[in-house]
């Protein structure tokens, strides 16, 4: 039966890779198929309908709320001009030294990455950041990669991600936070190295382009014209982070505090209600794709944790899972590419199911699986040519996602290696 479940998983990966099915739909179908293969009854305890679908769908509800709040805050950063002001100031201060601009945009991307993830984060930092970098001479692939590497620096401190791993792996938030703090230096060093090394290797680039001169100057008030946010409003992205990391406040109140801070530092009292509602509804739109995915992941996790599935998969997974720390690092580092192209180790896809299997069968402690999953997440978030932020950043810069993957993969692979080494050293 275990082999049948693995074949079903392979079919699910094939459906996602060939884009026959959207990832979320493929995961739900896969979950139902696994549940039937594991011999689960239709209704009742450990059943397809009651356990997998009914209990699985809202299992990651806390993550979904965190995602929604992060998206809301992201919308506020956009509408109040906080993100744009940060990039504009960086260009004004460091624009004659392209590498300074790239490092500055990297820092903004990291800040934005702590608030929200995926394509919305890339857009917040990249809408102005990418063309601004290109305008000062940074090659396009380097510019797109800088945004993605920057977001990856913020990901270890992205509160919705803490919530996701905490709920999905049934670990306390403190444990997740503890590992993320250890993962962060690897992400930071790799991102800074990316900017410095790629800037040195590729230098600067200027083109005489045939772009039509479309810009038209307009006349309005300066603040309104530039969307300048006051300097104290620029601290918004660090507010949730300071509260959650420094004061160990819970994730949802920390994010709410960020929303309130952004609002009161940028908005007149009589405009607050309207802006809050508008950005909240906008946040729903932004959060819809990841929330859909988290519903599906919850369902898949419920399926792979069914007793029948655990019993069937345990001997098979045990036979191929390395127990030696060195082998653990080697094997899972070599397997890094399997989290690309919606592959089986993508933690926001089938990888979540595999993580569930590893924990449910007791092959690795949940903390080791956390280390593995978060390490892979650092790769997926930057280099996967099918992930929305990579596609958006690459296409917006005018290059292909594959070019960005080739350029960034060595750096994020090194981050994964670092994360896996820490995991092996501390959790095995």
């Amino acid at each position, binding site marked *: 039966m275990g082999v049948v479940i693995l074949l079903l998983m392979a079919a699910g990966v094939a459906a996602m890779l060939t884009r026959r099915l959207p990832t979320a739909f493929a995961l739900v179908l896969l979950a139902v198929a696994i549940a039937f293969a594991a011999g689960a009854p239709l209704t009742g305890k450990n059943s397809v309908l009651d356990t997998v679908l009914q209990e699985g769908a809202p299992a990651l509800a806390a993550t979904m709320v965190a995602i929604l709040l992060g998206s809301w805050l992201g919308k506020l950063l956009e509408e109040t001009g906080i993100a*744009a002001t940060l*990039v*504009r100031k960086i*260009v*004004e*201060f*460091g*624009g*004659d030294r392209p590498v300074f601009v790239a490092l500055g945009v990297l820092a903004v991307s990291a800040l934005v990455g702590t608030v929200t993830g995926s394509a919305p984060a890339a857009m917040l930092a990249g809408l*102005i950041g990418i*063309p*601004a970098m*290109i*305008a*000062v*001479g940074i*090659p396009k692939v380097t510019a797109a990669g800088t945004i993605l590497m920057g977001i990856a620096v913020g990901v270890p401190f992205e509160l919705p991600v803490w919530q996701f791993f905490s709920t999905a792996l049934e670990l306390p938030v403190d444990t997740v936070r503890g590992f993320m703090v250890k993962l962060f230096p690897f992400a930071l060093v790799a991102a800074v190295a990316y900017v410095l090394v790629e800037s*040195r*290797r*590729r*230098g*600067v*680039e*200027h*083109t*005489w*382009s*045939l*772009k*039509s*001169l*479309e*810009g*038209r*100057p*307009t*006349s*309005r008030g*300066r603040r*309104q*014209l*530039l*969307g300048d946010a006051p300097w104290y409003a620029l601290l918004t992205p660090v507010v949730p982070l300071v509260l959650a990391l420094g004061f160990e406040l819970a994730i949802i109140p920390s994010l709410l505090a960020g929303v309130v801070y952004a609002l009161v530092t940028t908005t007149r009292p009589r405009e607050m209600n309207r802006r809050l509602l508008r950005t909240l509804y906008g946040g729903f739109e932004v959060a819809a794709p990841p929330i859909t995915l988290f519903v599906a992941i919850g369902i898949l996790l419920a399926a792979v944790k069914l007793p029948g599935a655990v019993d069937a998969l345990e001997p098979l997974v045990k036979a191929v899972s390395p127990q030696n720390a060195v082998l653990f690092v080697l094997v899972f580092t070599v397997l890094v590419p399997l989290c690309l192209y919606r592959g089986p180790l993508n933690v926001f896809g089938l990888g979540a199911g595999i993580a569930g299997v590893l924990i449910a069968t007791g092959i690795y402690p949940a903390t080791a699986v956390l280390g593995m999953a978060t390490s892979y997440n650092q790769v997926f978030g930057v280099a996967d040519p099918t992930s929305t932020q990579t596609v958006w950043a690459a296409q*917006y*810069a*005018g290059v292909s996602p594959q070019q960005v993957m080739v350029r960034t993969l060595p750096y994020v692979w090194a981050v994964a290696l670092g994360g896996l080494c820490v995991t092996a050293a501390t959790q095995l």
Partner: protein
Amino acid sequence: MSGDHGPGLGLDPGHDHDLDLAVRLLAGTPTHEGRDPLVLRRWAEAAEEFGRRMSPDPVPVRVVERDGGLTAGLLARYRSRPPVVEVYVDTVDRAERLVAELGWRSWFPAGSVLAAALAHERAHAWLHHARVRAEFKRALGHTALRLGPRRLYAHVAGADELAAHAYARAACGLGRSPLLLTEALAAAMSKKPEVPESETDRWVS
């Protein structure tokens, strides 16, 4: 955009239009969204003046001729590592034909497009020298930070493009700004698309 406004109507017949084009380029450059048009005009004038007065050292740079410029939406490209100027000959040919069609030959003499492309990219290379960068920022006069009598000058995104065009115009003795040619080429391409729109170059740098 026809030959009606040919040379000979004044000392610098297209000055206002060229300046308008320069202001539009700045206005379309990220970080200047909706910036005060008068400020943009002042910067455009300062950048063009700086470009006209530039005298880059003759640094040997490899020049490579390429095809595919119309597809990529490029006329020329400068890369610093290794230093190379890529000239897209198909775009240069198209520009020369367009100059003839529009009756602009007195502004852009035969062969001047290639010369302007090389001069433009030489200017970009020159503008990366620390001393030149500092002078350029001072000429633009945009203050990022002021501490008593001390001023930290800000970078103005897009201004180096204007300076490079102004240098190319002065160095090649063109009657009008190369921006006019850029606009004409963009207009011609949009009327009779020779390339898929999605593949055109998105940002001026």
